[in-house]
């Protein structure tokens, strides 16, 4: 079982839990199981094409899966998955 940490604003879609223990051999499998168990989470993490929203980053322990094998990244029992958004911006022009 891996532990998925649920960010505060998404806990309302996960029975108000701050973390969920989920089975899965890869990040993709864990996310699939997570969003099957908590269906409302799906639209917050995935877009209409079923891809992770572009601002959603997934970390396995301290590693960003973009630099591993993305959603095929293996997950071991005891691993912790974190959902972390990309955030940037700035005033336009000078």
């Amino acid at each position, binding site marked *: 079982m891996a532990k998925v*940490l649920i*960010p*505060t*604003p*998404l806990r309302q879609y996960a029975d108000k839990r*701050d973390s969920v223990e989920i089975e899965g051999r890869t990040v993709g499998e864990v996310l699939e199981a997570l969003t099957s168990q908590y269906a409302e989470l799906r*639209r*917050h993490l995935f877009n209409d094409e079923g891809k992770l*929203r572009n*601002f959603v*980053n997934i*970390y396995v322990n*301290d590693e*960003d899966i973009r630099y591993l094998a993305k959603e095929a990244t293996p997950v071991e029992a005891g691993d912790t998955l*974190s959902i*972390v*958004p*990309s*955030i*940037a*911006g*700035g*005033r*336009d*022009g*000078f």
Partner: protein
Amino acid sequence: MIRIEPQAWEEMVAHARATYPNECCGAMLGRVDNGDKIVQLALRLENAYEGEQRNRYEVRPEDLLVAERRARREGLELVGIFHSHPDADAYFSETDLKNSCPWYSFVVLSVKGGEVDHARSFLPNAEQTGAVEEELIYPR
């Protein structure tokens, strides 16, 4: 509604002043009471944008992960992100919108001539196509 407590606000202002004329960014930690967000702790984050920082900021996801872990450790919640607009008003720009996330409040501080002038808070949608303003209460 989002309310920023004095100590957190002072930290946000100090960060915005220290980074002027560049943009600053940071995380806001606190609690949520009946849908109202109370910011009790502001954490300075490094502006990771590689390039001109007078009109851009970027939060490193790893830094946000650290902020999120600290919130959990201290029994707080990550409720928002703040950044500054040097010598510009506190509006939610096209760049802000295109690089936003709908999960958090986005507080923008207008800094004019090195001093914080005013602030506003915004809630972007999931498609990054629009943001609504939310009521912001902060010390003045």
